[in-house]
């Protein structure tokens, strides 16, 4: 075995020396793999850092708890605590009130945990506060809050300072009494006495969570099941790991989608290796024939040619991992742990080197290199030496017509793949369909090239005729030059169609959801801020206000293992007017429920179905009247009429108000009057135009990473055309010399090369746009729907796509001419004499 390895090593200069000689093509292949690996590695490293930080935070928060009892965002009755603490299987129960306290005058909030200091040390010791004064009872001071290091740094406060936060629509002043020395992560957090928190934030008698430590020997799963049986509706008992799983699941689809985009960039890199190796095989055909003639076995030749790809792939993989970590570091600093998508707000993840993931990504580089080199190596190994040693065989090109039937079968297979339901929340059918479309399009490329050549006009200048004749005679060459273009254009077109459709749909959605003149709120829906009845009355009575539609927000736990579902209660008509409905609404008797597409997908609810919603700890039967589009809440949202909600729960508070101005009222004056209803900085007021602008800005930021991936893929594809033509032009020096002898000017040969470049890229762009359109549809109808549970209307950005395609063809023509310049110099004329 080692002898064989040694034997292989002896031949290294023969093959690796050739890689070094083809510096430009090798460099392009290397760069393509580096970029593909780097992008995938960066996405992986960033999300791993964020998830690890999130998980660490949750572990700190859960401490030694075996189980956690959680309920709706509005909380549940604290009497449950006494019942659970008294159970024989429970050793300790720690009640927690969680409040997202908005900081007055600042557009951010602080997570405040109200805790029982007496049981904290035994269940969640990481949250134990430390008073700077050394007073062990400082936590019981009504307004004392203990801040984590990250929170104190972020807020710029120290012990003894005062902190102004909002409770409902009133201002509350807290005093920083100390820190949380045992909290190991960078979470921004405040801890205070639970009774004080309940009083200050208007949550008397309410709890958000109860952490349970079970007695020794009690089986956690058995205890979970028996506890769940005694809990009121909408209150669930879960393991601390469940929330981490939910967070990971929530961001997983986004993460996987980004990783797949990086994979397509890597695939483009693989095609570039294919181009470089295929052309290298053409150029080195007689070299291989000679080596075979003097006794190089076919298998060794094949192995070494694949090895050339593997070497490029390995180098690219190692460099890609290094560059990927650099990119991840930059992305964490600029975009945060969720790459701008908003999944892990408030976290400060730290990048860590992951040996296993790094090795896998480096290996993916090798796989791309090997896959790209495989087919050309096979081609080279099957060449008959006697044939290839003949003079004039040097520039033989693929003349095949590809595998059109297999290509068509793959396209048909993509349709079938679209029907595959999601697996563990991931749209594997969609990914398979994308792969089938791409592979099918590549296999059909020679046929498309041949068809295009037949459709081209027969006459015209000689340079054009030569270029068309070449495309017709060797359509397989189109695969070599245009496969990378096809892949990158397909990716770019698919993403452009998907993003344009999404953005257009979001825009329409915002227009439908924001019909009022002004929007007022006491803070983010998740925060502890609200508008009480007195304030609601004052809003309605404000001069200039015509009508007001209030909305109440809450979060409901519908099933274990699922993230909370948002509950919105607002005035609703029977026909669901004002909602961006999907399909026709149903006329129902009794209280109706409007569900988002995510709820439809995740819980299987359908219009007309009677469902139970846990409201105020009781199951309430409602009929699903319709499905609406919701691009804001991936975990699902349900909407009911505000009056029905109030009647069912007795909750009279609301979170925000949509205000229609009275006829002739001045918007600015009315806005000023409304903000003056509470203390300075308490009420937030926005015009629909502002909300729309901010939302679309966030949308664009979310897709910034995908734009980057697209640009990289297109650059790689274009580099492929340049590399292909550089290699091919060098191999065709004798042909150019012969043409110059026949009387073609250098300009005419340049024009011929430009035509060839434009034709090859044109074939790639045409096939890429067609494949991209199909992939765009798969992304819209399958991948997005199954990953994020939202549908959208198709919107094709025709002008952008045509401009992009035309630009790419022009650039490819230019690249081909530049690549051929070297071969068109005077010595090309002499090259033909080498045969004399």
């Amino acid at each position, binding site marked *: 075995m080692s002898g064989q390895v040694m034997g292989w090593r002896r031949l290294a200069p023969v093959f690796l020396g050739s890689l070094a*000689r083809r510096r430009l093509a090798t460099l392009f292949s290397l760069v393509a793999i580096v970029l593909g690996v780097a992008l995938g590695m960066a996405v992986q490293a960033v999300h791993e850092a964020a998830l690890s930080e999130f998980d660490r935070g949750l572990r700190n928060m859960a401490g030694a708890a075996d189980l956690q009892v959680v309920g709706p965002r509005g909380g549940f009755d604290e009497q449950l605590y006494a019942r659970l603490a008294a159970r024989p299987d429970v050793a300790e129960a720690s009640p927690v009130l969680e409040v997202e306290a908005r900081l007055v005058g600042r557009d951010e909030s602080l997570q405040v945990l109200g805790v029982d200091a007496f049981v904290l040390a035994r269940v969640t010791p990481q949250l134990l506060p430390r008073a700077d004064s050394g007073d062990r009872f400082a936590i019981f001071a009504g307004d004392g809050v203990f801040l984590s290091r990250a929170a104190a740094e972020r807020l710029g406060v120290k012990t003894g300072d005062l902190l102004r936060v909002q409770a409902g629509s009133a201002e509350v002043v807290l005093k920083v009494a100390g820190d949380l020395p045992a909290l190991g992560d960078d979470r921004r957090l405040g801890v205070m006495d639970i009774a004080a928190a309940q009083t200050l934030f208007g949550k008397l008698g309410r709890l958000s969570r109860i952490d349970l430590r079970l007695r020794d020997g009690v089986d956690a799963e058995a205890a979970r099941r028996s506890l769940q049986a005694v809990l009121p509706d909408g209150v669930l008992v879960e393991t601390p790991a469940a929330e981490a799983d939910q967070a990971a699941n929530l961001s997983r689809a986004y993460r996987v989608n980004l990783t797949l985009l990086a994979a397509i960039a890597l695939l483009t890199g693989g095609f570039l290796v294919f181009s470089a190796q295929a052309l290298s095989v053409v150029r080195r055909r007689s070299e291989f024939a000679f080596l075979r003639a003097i006794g190089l076995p076919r298998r060794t030749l094949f192995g070494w040619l694949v090895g050339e790809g593997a070497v490029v792939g390995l180098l690219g993989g190692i460099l890609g991992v290094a560059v990927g970590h650099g990119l991840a570091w930059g992305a964490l600093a600029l975009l945060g742990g969720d790459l701008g998508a908003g999944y892990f707000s408030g976290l400060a993840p730290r990048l860590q080197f992951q040996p296993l993931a790094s090795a896998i990504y480096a290996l993916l580089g090798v796989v791309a290199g090997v896959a790209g080199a495989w087919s050309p190596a096979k081609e080279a190994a099957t060449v008959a030496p006697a044939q290839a040693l003949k003079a004039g065989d040097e520039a033989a090109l693929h003349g095949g017509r590809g595998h059109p039937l297999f290509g068509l079968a793959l396209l048909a297979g993509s349709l079938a793949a679209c029907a595959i339901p999601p697996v563990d929340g991931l749209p594997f059918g969609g990914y398979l369909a994308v792969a089938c479309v791409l592979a099918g399009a590549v296999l059909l490329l020679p046929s498309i090239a041949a068809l295009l050549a037949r459709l081209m006009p027969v006459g015209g200048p000689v340079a054009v005729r030569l270029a068309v004749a070449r495309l017709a005679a060797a359509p397989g060459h189109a695969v070599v030059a245009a496969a990378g273009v096809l892949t990158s254009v397909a990716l770019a077109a698919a993403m452009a169609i998907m993003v344009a459709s999404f953005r257009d749909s979001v825009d329409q959605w915002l227009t439908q959801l924001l019909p009022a003149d002004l929007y007022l709120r006491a803070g983010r829906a998740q925060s502890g801020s609200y508008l009480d009845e007195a304030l609601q009355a004052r809003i309605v009575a404000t001069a200039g206000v015509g009508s007001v539609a209030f909305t109440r927000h809450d979060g409901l736990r519908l099933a274990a293992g699922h993230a909370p579902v948002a509950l919105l209660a607002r005035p609703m008509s029977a026909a669901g007017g004002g909602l961006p409905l999907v399909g026709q609404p149903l006329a129902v008797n009794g209280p109706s429920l409007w569900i988002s597409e995510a709820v439809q997908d995740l819980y299987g609810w359908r219009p007309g179905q009677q469902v139970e919603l846990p409201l105020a700890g009781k199951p309430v039967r409602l009929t699903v009247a319709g499905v609406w589009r919701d691009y804001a809440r991936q975990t699902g949202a349900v909407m009911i009429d505000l009056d029905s909600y109030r009647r069912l729960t007795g909750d009279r508070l609301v979170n925000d108000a949509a205000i229609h101005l009275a006829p002739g009222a001045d918007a600015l004056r009315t806005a000023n009057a409304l903000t003056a209803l509470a203390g300075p900085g308490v009420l937030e007021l926005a015009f629909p135009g502002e909300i729309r602008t901010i939302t679309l800005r966030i949308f664009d930021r979310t897709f910034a990473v995908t734009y980057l991936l697209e640009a990289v893929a297109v650059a790689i594809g274009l580099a492929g055309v340049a590399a292909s033509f550089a290699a091919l032009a060098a191999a065709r020096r004798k042909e150019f010399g012969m043409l110059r002898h026949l009387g073609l000017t250098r300009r005419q040969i340049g024009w011929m090369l430009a035509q060839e470049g434009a034709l090859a890229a044109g074939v790639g762009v045409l096939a890429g746009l067609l494949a991209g359109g199909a992939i765009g549809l798969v992304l819209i109808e399958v991948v997005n729907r199954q990953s994020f549970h939202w549908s959208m209307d198709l919107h094709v950005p025709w002008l952008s796509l045509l401009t992009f395609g035309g630009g790419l063809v022009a650039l490819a023509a230019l690249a081909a001419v530049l690549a051929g310049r070297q071969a068109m110099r005077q010595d090309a004329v002499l090259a033909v004499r080498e045969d004399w």
Partner: protein
Amino acid sequence: MLEIENLSRSFNGRSVLRDISLRLAPGEYVAIVGESGVGKSTLLNLIAGLDRPDGGRLRLDGEDYALHDEDALTRLRRDKLGFVFQAFHILPHLNVAQNVALPLWLQGVERDAADGPARQLLDAVGLGTRGDSWPRELSGGEMQRVAIARALVHAPRLVLADEPTGNLDPANAARVLALLAERVRAAGAIGILVTHSLEAAATADRTLYLTAEGLRG
């Protein structure tokens, strides 16, 4: 000893070679001449194991290789045959000494160990100082001398030269042909020179004429 008996080959029903027989002893250097299309390259490919005959026998030192499988033919070429081509086939990314050492590398000789014999052969063909040069720095005549050194470095039993001077000017061609004959004889190998030039053929011990009727002495 190379023994060819009743060798025949046809392509698409057209007979190119029919009943070709030939016996060559070690140290014997012959030239095969013939018009274009008469089957010189086909005969050379068959002798080299690059093609398979339809009938007949091919024996080198008693080993009948006409029906060997591909792996066995590859081994035969690697160990017992040397080639000189019209188009040189010098690998541009290996230096001159490495190009000459290549057949030894294929036989499993370590790179360092192969360097000595390669440089000795280069010395023998008058290129002793050019071992570290790159092929692009050589003239056509020098490249063909490198090819001759490479064809002989692994002491083959049979050296096949296919129009080795086709790319050279007359003066260089004469020098290369003389060198080839000298080195083949010195190595005690069997040499076959295929050419359409009678002048080139004159450098061999004897000339055989390949015609549509067969091989004539």
